[in-house]
């Protein structure tokens, strides 16, 4: 069963990657990032059950990841709101200060 889970995670990861790179709405980009993190979590939990040495470590790791992701989402949305106040938009195209 393990390859099926891993394939599913790969699909999720790639969809998330596409969303993160191609979408112009910053909120959707954030959501895509969450999707990628979830793909990683799925892998961790799958290995926790079907890995060579089944152990609870994978699950604990995924819990940590979820916690970090939650913190990241909170800070990300806060940054978004601050950016929106400064620029009046959430279109990532508007954020090109790195060019200068």
């Amino acid at each position, binding site marked *: 069963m393990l390859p099926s889970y891993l394939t599913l995670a790969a699909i999720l990861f790639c969809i998330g*990657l596409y969303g*993160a*790179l191609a979408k112009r709405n910053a909120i959707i*980009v954030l959501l895509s990032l969450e999707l990628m993190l979830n793909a990683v979590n799925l892998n961790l939990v799958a290995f926790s059950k079907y890995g060579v040495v089944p152990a609870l470590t994978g699950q604990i790791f995924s819990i940590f990841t979820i916690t970090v992701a939650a913190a990241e989402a909170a800070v990300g949305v806060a940054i978004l709101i601050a950016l929106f106040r400064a620029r009046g938009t959430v279109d990532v195209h508007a*954020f090109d*200060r790195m*060019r*200068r």
Partner: protein
Amino acid sequence: MDMFAKIAWVIPLLPLASFLILTALGRSYRTAGVWIGSIGSLGAFVMSLLVLLERLKPNPVDYSNGFDWITIGDYTLTIGYEVTNLTSLMLVIVTLVGFLVNVYSAGYMKEDERITVFYGYVSLFTFSMLGLVLSDNLLSFYLFWELVGVCSFLLIGFWYARPAAKAAAKKAFIVTRIGDAGLFLAILLLFWYMPEHALGFTMIESVFDNQGGTITEGITTLIALLIFLGAVGKSGQFPLHVWLPDAMEGPTPISALIHAATMVAAGVFLVARTFDIFEASEAAMQTVAYVGAFTAIFAATIALAQNDLKRVLAYSTVSQLGYMMLALGLGSLAGGIFHLFTHAFFKALLFLAAGSVIHAAHTQDVREMGGLGSRMKTTAWTFAIGALALSGIPPLSGFWSKDLILAVALEENLLLFAVALAAAFCTALYMTRLFVLVFLGKPKQAEERTAGAKESPAVMTIPLIVLAALAVAAGFVETPWNGWFGHWLTDGAGEAHGSAIAIVCSVAVGVLGVLAGWAIWGRERGAGEAAATLAGRAPGLVRLAERKYYIDEAYEAVFVRGLRGIGAVLEAFDRYVVGGAVKLAGLAANAAGRLALRLQNGQVQTYSLAAVLGIIVIVLAVIGRRMLS
């Protein structure tokens, strides 16, 4: 014991210190420049004299010292100095003439606003020349050799606002460069063939001294000829003599110091220093002798027809250098160096006296001069002494050295003896002409210009008197009855000479030349008239000599035009092929830049995409390699 020889390394450093101080001072300290330059050269002169006096003791031992300069693998390059009889003599000549020229320039260059720069250059030159003389190996010799070339370039082009001076400086540099290339090739060959790649003069001497050594005769001849090519360039021998007369565009003290007494003698010195290589090759010796003899007669005839005071002296220098080469080529080291020694004094004297005349008359054309003898008594008398010494009238120094060379030529080769005699006759002839035209007769200039012609200040005349005394006395170190000089110089191998025929011939041609000159140009006749008479009798010959045998024109036609043609082709190649490639590269870089600029759009997403694509490429490459292997 060898106390002064041990500290001989200080001698070049004194002028170097003057040069550095003068360069640091800048242009504003005019009198300071004169003092610093003169004191530096005086110090060097005193020390050289002490070294020479020490060498005069019986059986002096050559002293050399040095340190490792560069170590490459097993090979160590040393740099050092060596004191021998020859080098100590050269030291004294260089520093003495250098000091006198320094003093003289205080008067001659007084009005020039760049006098401090001038003294700096002269000090630099003195440093390089002394370094050249003291070098104990060919490589450092070559470095200083190039350095004196640079100084010569700087000083010929000292008045760079004049187009002629600029052109002359360039010409001197480029023409001597041909010779320098020869010398460099010779050094490379020596490096290649010498045991342990040694370049020291002592090593060269010991290797070439015993015949049938490690180096074959063909290579020896090749090396000797290449060295001689360097000497030809520096000493203005035919066919590379063309730069020396043009070098007279520089200030006259420079002509005396560099282009008469010291630097041009460096070629002779080089041959003398590597004499063992030449002695090992018969063909090379022959070449040296014939080139020297040809140059002697060739330049002497040109000097007959020139009208520029300094150019006559310049061709005379070329001719006398030819004499030195002739002596060396005939195997007489003492003869060549003895003539170098005496020539340094009387030619420097002649140039400085000519400078005094030019200073007063504001022209260099002898046809515009005349009657200056009564106004400039000191200059006239000293010039006369120099001219008689050059003409070989006994008992002045030029007679003894020329006589020595003639005696050697008589023994070795009658043809060369005849050529040398003819050259000596021409020498006496043109010197008489010069003296008569400049100092005797009636003034030919307009009144207001001659009115200013008066004797030069003491600072200029005293060096003249000193040099005149030397020109009289210097010859007595070597007479047909007393071979002390040759004995001292060649370390025992004194050359037996003293042929009565040679003496008689030598005196005869000298006196004949003077008398003939007097007959043609003297007797209160106008110079123009005399020249017209001569030109009327042999118009073609005079014209040929006046145009310097069309050598410059021939070079212009053959080398300069040819090189220009090649240059044009190369320029076209450069412009269209190389330039096109360069432009293409520029355009490609530009296009790449535009592409990169589009990538650099400030969007985090684009950057991340680039990262993702990069990772994919890397992973694919790794997989591909693993699959292939």
